């Protein structure tokens, strides 16, 4: 009984307290302190997350599941970065210096591995976008044609060429210039869709939060009690 009631009660009280803190200025301190507690819990979650990552990948290696050599790379990279950062190896200022000090192994890992790898992954997008656009953007039906037209206008509108192509338009038809059409698509058509998604997400968050505060949603207790 206590294993269920106490956490549910605690969650409800904290949830209601945070809702109240949003509306009453005098409760700013509560809001700030609880956010700090959240940060402390989140820091502990990093340890749990790291442990879970190592456990999962070692299990994959042990059972020789598909792609297991990549798991070795993941675990080695994780442990190397963790040890280099925790013990500040190569840090000229020793334990007192910042973890990312120049010359440290941690800094080297970031500069020589993480940085170029992330940049490469993101750069590859240009090639995939080009290839995918060529194959997917076909005027197969009305919806696809509309999407194709919008994509072409946005692509051209984000460059100098878009303005150049429609610079001959008279002043009274300036709203038809590609940059203006591009802005209209972004600030009207896109806006309507994006706003609908945001409102939908907001309503979903309110609904889920209410279910948690009222104790209806209990899956966070571990699943069996939900």
């Amino acid at each position, binding site marked *: 009984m206590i294993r269920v009631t106490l956490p549910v009660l605690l969650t409800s009280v904290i949830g209601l307290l945070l809702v109240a803190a*949003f509306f009453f200025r005098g409760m*700013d*301190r509560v*809001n*700030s302190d609880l*956010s*700090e507690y*959240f*940060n402390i819990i*989140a*820091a502990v979650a*990093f340890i749990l997350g790291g442990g879970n990552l190592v456990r999962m990948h070692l299990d994959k290696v042990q059972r020789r599941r598909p792609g297991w050599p990549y798991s070795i790379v993941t675990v080695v990279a994780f442990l190397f970065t963790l040890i280099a950062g925790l013990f500040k190896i190569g840090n000229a200022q020793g334990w007192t210096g*910042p973890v*990312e000090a120049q010359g440290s192994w941690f800094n080297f890992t*970031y*500069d020589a591995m*993480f*940085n170029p790898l*992330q*940049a490469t*992954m*993101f750069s590859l997008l*240009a*090639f995939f*976008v*080009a*290839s995918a*656009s*060529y*194959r997917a*953007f*076909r*005027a*197969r*039906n009305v919806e696809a044609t509309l999407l*194709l037209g919008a*994509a*072409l206008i946005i*692509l*051209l509108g*984000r*460059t*100098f*060429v878009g*303005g150049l192509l429609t610079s001959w338009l008279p002043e009274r038809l300036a709203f038809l210039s590609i*940059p203006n059409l591009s*802005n209209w698509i*972004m*600030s009207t058509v*896109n*806006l309507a869709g*994006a*706003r609908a998604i*945001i409102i939908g997400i907001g309503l979903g968050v309110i609904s889920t939060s209410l279910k948690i505060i009222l104790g209806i949603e209990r899956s966070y207790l571990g699943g069996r009690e939900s």
Partner: protein
Amino acid sequence: MSAFMDRVGRMDRRWIYLAIALAVIIPLIARLSFPVITTPIVQNIFDKIDGMPEGSRMILSADFGPSTVPENMPMLQAVLRHALQKKLKVYLLTLWATGIPQLDAVEQNVLAKDFPDRLAGQDWVNLGYKAGNQGVINAAFSDFPGAFPVDSKGRDVRTLPIMEGVKRIADFNLIICIGSGFPGTKEWIQFGGDPSHVPVACGVTAVEAPLLYPYYPRQLLGLMGGLQGAAEYEAVLVKHYPEYEARSQEAIQRMGPQTVAHLVIIAFIVLGNLAFFAGGEWRGKRA
């Protein structure tokens, strides 16, 4: 003709990769650049900073990692140059662990080179990284020094002259988030700007920009979207402050390859559709 279009329709993707590579490399080598016209959504940010009185406080949050440096870094540098030119007090920070080197980079490339006379801790401060995502903004809302107790050098922020009179987010005059995801602009609006009535502006990647239009113009005073947005800010900065012409041109230069790459992608889309219609495939698809 039909055979040619058929071959076009079945083009090996490696030809597309080669075309894109050339479309980026050649303009980069040739230093191809095009004129950039600043749109109102970017101009608003410039006007806001330009109109702020000396000594106004501005949070500049670098919430991005190395993958989006080509888009985000020119924005960060241009905004920082402008703010320091106007003698605003700048509070640099990041909510991303991978944002620390970005702050170090602007310290070296902008603060040390362009503004060596501005003192750390007095005219600007690097508050570094704080874990906790939106929780950090929420904590800073009512206790800013509590959320960022030390700067990047480990100094107690309460001893720094720049922190005089700074107790909460409401004590700032502007928040600018240069970001590329979560936590980023949305969180600064929801937990920082909106509750404290401090204006928020942002510079984000082209991918994220469409998601932020719903906040403009009431909750977001301006938005720099992708490399184009960065180039627009650089263009207006250089127009008003020509002394930065040599150093604030990164995004403008990169717009050359981006423009050519866009044109190549458009050419492939048109080719693909011509092959689609020439092959008669569309008749079956539309039925």
